[in-house]
Structures are given as C-alpha cells and as structure tokens.
C-alpha cells in the first residue's frame, strides 16, 4: 500500500570508513519516528 512520505532532517553526517558515510536522520520537530516495521513473514 502507498505509504505517506515523511520528511526527515539530516541531523548528522560522518565518515565511517573509506567511501562510507553515515547519515543520522530525525524529524524536524524532534518527534518519534515510525518503529522499525515487523517482518512480513517469518519461518
């Protein structure tokens, strides 16, 4: 199903290794983000 897009602010950017950056993302208002969704299926 289509999901509502959420706008997030880049709160941090850091180099994690050669050629790898990490981004930290947060809501502009600092609110709670959607939980990591539970798996669709599992065995």
């Amino acid at each position, binding site marked *: *199903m*289509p*999901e509502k*897009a*959420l*706008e*997030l*602010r*880049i*709160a*941090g*950017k850091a180099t*994690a*290794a*050669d*050629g*790898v*950056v*990490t*981004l*930290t*993302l*947060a*809501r*502009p208002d*600092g*609110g*709670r*983000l*959607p*939980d*990591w*969704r*539970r*798996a*669709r*299926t*599992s*065995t």
Partner: protein
Amino acid sequence: MTRQYSLCGNRWDAETYRVGVLREVAGRGGSAYVHDVLAVGDLVGLGGPRNNFPLVPASRYLFVAGGIGITPLLPMVHQAELLGADWTLVYGGRTRGSMAFLDELAVHGERVHVVPQDECGLIDLPRWLGAPDPATKVYCCGPGPLLDAVERICAAWPPFALRTERFVAREQGAPSRTTPFDVELARTGGTVTVPPDLSVLEALGKAGVEVLSSCRQGLCGTCETDVLAGLPEHRDSILDDAERAAGDCMFVCVSRSLGDRLVLDL
C-alpha cells in the same frame, strides 16, 4: 530519486535513524548524491521503514558480512547481544580502512572476526559453515559472489537456516511465458493485459493503476502486492522458497505469471 538503505542505528532509539552509505562508483548517482551533496540540515523524504530481512528466533547466530553488507547485520548483532544469544560475526572487506563500524564492533571482543582481504584473504567459508548446525541461523549480506558461495555451502544445512539480503538482483533466466497474461484487479475491478515486453508494474501504470515502487529490480520490496488467485512466477531476490511456494504475494516490478490470469488485491 528513491533509494533503499539499511537502518544501522539503535532500533530502540525512537527519535533517530542511522544509515550507512557506500559510494558506488558505478552506481546510478544516489550514493554520490548522499556523499557529495547532502549536508546536515537538509531535508529528505522517507518511505518505510520496511523489513525484508527479519531476525528470527534462534539460540545461535552466525552473521557473515561482506563490505557495506555489514549495515543490515549491525542491528541484528545488537539484538542478538541484547537477547543473550550465542552469536558470531565474520566480517570481510577489502582493507581495514574500507570497513565501517569496526570501532563499534570492537566492544564485542572475540565474537567478531574481522577479515580484511589484503591481510587475510577471503573469508574461509568452509571453516565457518562447513558443519551444519540445526541450532544456528546464518545471516549473510554482501556482494553477490559472497552470497552465492554461502548459499552453495548452506545447501547442506537444514531448510531456512540461511537468510540473505542482496543489494544486487539475483540473475534470472528468461520468463517462462512468452505470451501475454491478464491481471485482474480485485478491489477496483478491471483487467490489465501484460504483454511480454512490459512488467506487471509497467502495464498497470499504463492502465492508470499506480503501485508504489522503488528499485524496479525485485530487491527492495516496495511494490509487494497480494495475489488472490493465479500462480505468480517469482523473479525477485527477496522471497525465500516457502514464501515463493505460498504464492500469496509478488513483487510486480519483476515477477510475472505462470498462467493466463492473476488476480491481485489492487
């Protein structure tokens, strides 16, 4: 542009997500944009998160990471640690300098085996996977050749012992049908004919039926659609054998139909 990245932060932190992004020199420009353009304070759109790669209960885990494939495994490592499971991570990369999160992983001591290729060669897979263990689940993420090699060795393991996540689509042969098939839309009514030269997603789009999609390679899972009747021909890199056999969902960007007709929950 829309890209999929693995969340690699603390899943119990409700206010921030963290992603790790490798610069893909031969990529389509997404990673270069992240590296060169995106800056602190910029706004980006988020769809998801979604989980195609869940950690299932087990008393023992073996995590095998190649390069940037460490990112989806990092939260699993944290979770396994939190659960008090017995776990081991074998993490290969070209050089130490190219391997992200080594500092974070160092706190786990001997559970983590770092294998930089320039010092140690490739991961010795037979050493880690040579003896199938029914109590162990194996999670692997990394480049295609690593996944292929792990899949070959794990063929000797119990079913579902191995779970993988691919960043590059699995090679697929030609579709089994060379003739059109019909897709019936159960909720909105109507039927869309899918010719051999269009994907289901494209045929739906032409008919004005929008399905949210992203990678268009059967990797990300965005376009998952419930199948109500008919037999899908799965051509994705996400579903495992049991999920394929169930035949109750498909990824319309790549998967097709074996029969003349599919009924989708659209």
